[in-house]
């Protein structure tokens, strides 16, 4: 399943290593996650569900869901989609909740303490842009991310970005990710998860975060926190939606664009928004056959230009059509679609079966708001922004003073607006830290103008309305 020739990407695979899966020898390359290497070896079933022992594979591939948890070197509940494979590792399918071995005490190391001026949670487009901006104006920055690679979803975006040529338009997401990484690499703390926001008892107006890195706890104090935790992919209700082979569009991108592994040979794409259309094109570029794109809405949600790209490659797009069920016992072997009437009800007799090994869901995203919630930020349900969203003002500050939101975590948008929000959040921190200069003021103003421009026009309307709701709710609270 490994991709050798790709029109846009080259895969610099690391050294060959070996680990075992249920006793079977698995070949992997250094830098590959356990789940990716297993997929390359054709293994899709990673664990069993707790109650009914149904097969489970991964779904998100970025550590957001719990679908890929396995026993690794005797430790249960390890998210194998974000854990790098190592030579000699012992990986086993997990049944049930996992057994915590009690014969040994965990290492009793002292809690490490760290401090920074600006802590950025999440190394995606918003987080990294925030880090670049905060550093530019001399603030001390630390960026924390759970994943083994920085760049968030940018590292998988092989298409050229829209937007203004003054900014990054025309540049591929992968290239933007590289540039951002180069500028921030010494601020990054990767494979580190922020597990909670704590009360600071020292009365110094600082925020206290707890992180886990290499299975040890770190206490991080920060004057300002920018939360750019991104989003998680939405699931859709249909029969057998839990079968391995039903993957989120981001997971499909991770496999093929980060690790160079084909998610399957034949794909049904569900959703004709920009993500569904773009990922379909990327699948074709990776040499994967896409049988069809189905879209429940009566029209294509994404840009016409993205739709045109896959149509001229012969991929049909069926609007007013949805997925009815996934077919298969242990993993997906087919999919059944059905047409919908004007009131979104399935029309019986219109079912169509496809022989596919992968069903890719591109049906939207929801902001990852756990940290805001736990820190006590006011949240509100804003459908235009993908669901529950932290309230924030134009400066991206939430109802918790000194805590800022940016990117998809602040309401679903796209990468260009995420980067702009990251920049604005960082400039707000710079201002609050008293580091403002004429240059920061100027950049601040320009960023607002640019952000408004990106959100103008027909396609920006929904996001614009969502943000207006957030701002006005914020005013009511303050």
């Amino acid at each position, binding site marked *: 399943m490994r991709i050798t020739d790709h029109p846009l990407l080259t895969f610099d695979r690391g050294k060959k290593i070996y680990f075992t899966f249920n006793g079977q020898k698995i070949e992997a390359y250094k830098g590959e996650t356990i789940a990716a290497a297993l997929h390359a070896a054709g293994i899709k079933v990673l664990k069993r569900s707790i109650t009914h022992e149904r097969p489970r594979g991964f779904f998100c591939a970025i550590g957001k869901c719990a679908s890929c948890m396995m026993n690794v070197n005797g430790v249960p509940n390890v998210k194998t989609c974000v854990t790098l494979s190592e030579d000699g590792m012992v990986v086993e399918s997990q049944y049930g909740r996992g057994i915590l071995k009690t014969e040994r005490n965990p290492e009793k190391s002292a809690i490490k303490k760290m401090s920074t001026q600006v802590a950025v949670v999440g190394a995606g487009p918003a987080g990294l842009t925030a880090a670049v901006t905060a550093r530019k104006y001399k603030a001390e920055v630390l960026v924390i991310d759970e994943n083994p690679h920085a760049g968030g979803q940018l590292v998988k975006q092989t298409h050229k970005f829209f937007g203004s*040529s003054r900014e990054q338009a*025309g540049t591929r997401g992968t290239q933007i990710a590289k540039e951002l990484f180069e500028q921030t690499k010494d601020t990054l703390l990767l494979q580190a998860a922020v597990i909670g926001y704590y009360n600071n008892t020292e009365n110094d107006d600082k925020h206290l975060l707890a992180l886990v890195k290499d299975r040890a706890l770190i206490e991080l104090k920060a004057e300002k926190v920018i939360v750019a935790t991104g989003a998680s992919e939405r699931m859709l209700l249909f029969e057998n939606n839990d079968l391995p082979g039903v993957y989120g569009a981001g997971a499909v991108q991770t496999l093929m664009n980060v690790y160079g592994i084909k998610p399957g040979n034949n794909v049904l794409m569900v959703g004709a928004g920009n993500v569904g259309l773009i990922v379909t094109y990327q699948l074709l570029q990776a040499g994967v056959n896409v049988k069809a794109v189905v879209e429940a809405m009566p029209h294509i949600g994404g*840009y*016409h230009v993205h739709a*045109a790209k896959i149509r001229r490659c012969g991929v049909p797009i069926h609007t007013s059509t949805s997925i009815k069920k996934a077919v298969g016992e242990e993993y997906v072997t087919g999919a059944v679609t059905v047409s919908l009437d004007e009131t979104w009800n399935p029309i019986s007799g219109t079912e169509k079966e496809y022989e596919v090994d992968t069903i890719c869901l591109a049906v939207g995203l929801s902001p990852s708001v756990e940290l805001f919630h736990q820190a006590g930020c006011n949240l509100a349900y804003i459908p235009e922004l993908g669901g529950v969203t932290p309230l924030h003002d134009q400066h991206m500050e939430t109802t918790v003073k000194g805590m800022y939101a940016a990117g998809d975590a602040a309401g679903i948008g796209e990468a260009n607006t995420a980067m702009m929000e990251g920049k604005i959040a960082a400039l707000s921190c710079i201002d609050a830290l008293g580091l403002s200069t004429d240059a920061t003021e100027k950049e601040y103003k320009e960023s607002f103008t640019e952000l408004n421009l990106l959100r103008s026009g027909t396609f920006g309307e929904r996001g614009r309305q969502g943000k207006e709701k957030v701002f006005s709710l914020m005013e009511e609270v303050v």
Partner: protein
Amino acid sequence: MNNEHRKTGILTEEQLEKLTPALTGKIAIVECVEDIPCDPCVTACPTEALVMDSLVGKPELIPEKCEGCGSCIAECPGLAIFVVDFDYSREEAVVMLPYEFVPLPEKGEKVDLLDREGEKCGEGTILRVRPHKNKTTVLSVVVPRTLAMRVRNVRRIL
């Protein structure tokens, strides 16, 4: 507003007519009909033939300024710009199109010609393969003149 293209992913005859002032000469066909916040084509054009009022809007082509050089083809993030030389020969036209697949066809190679729905509508010959640093290759393909406004993709014959 005609929204047929939002159901099919294919521009209607009417929309295409508006994009093509005259079926002569060598000219860019900008198949971009929506208000996308995007402007790299404007900066790519060496003759200022592409203009936009603001970032959000549709690019407008000034036909008399377009020399059909194709600089915009690989720069358009939407891969929505094509250049057609309607007068390549008596019977043939040349379509320049963006291509991002491997392996690339070679100069002189016979290829299947595909329309906007990916259906084969004829056979043509690759005239030129122009790589770009952003990895969008621009292919020039010789097609029967009658297919100049239909051919938008090619497929290697294996």
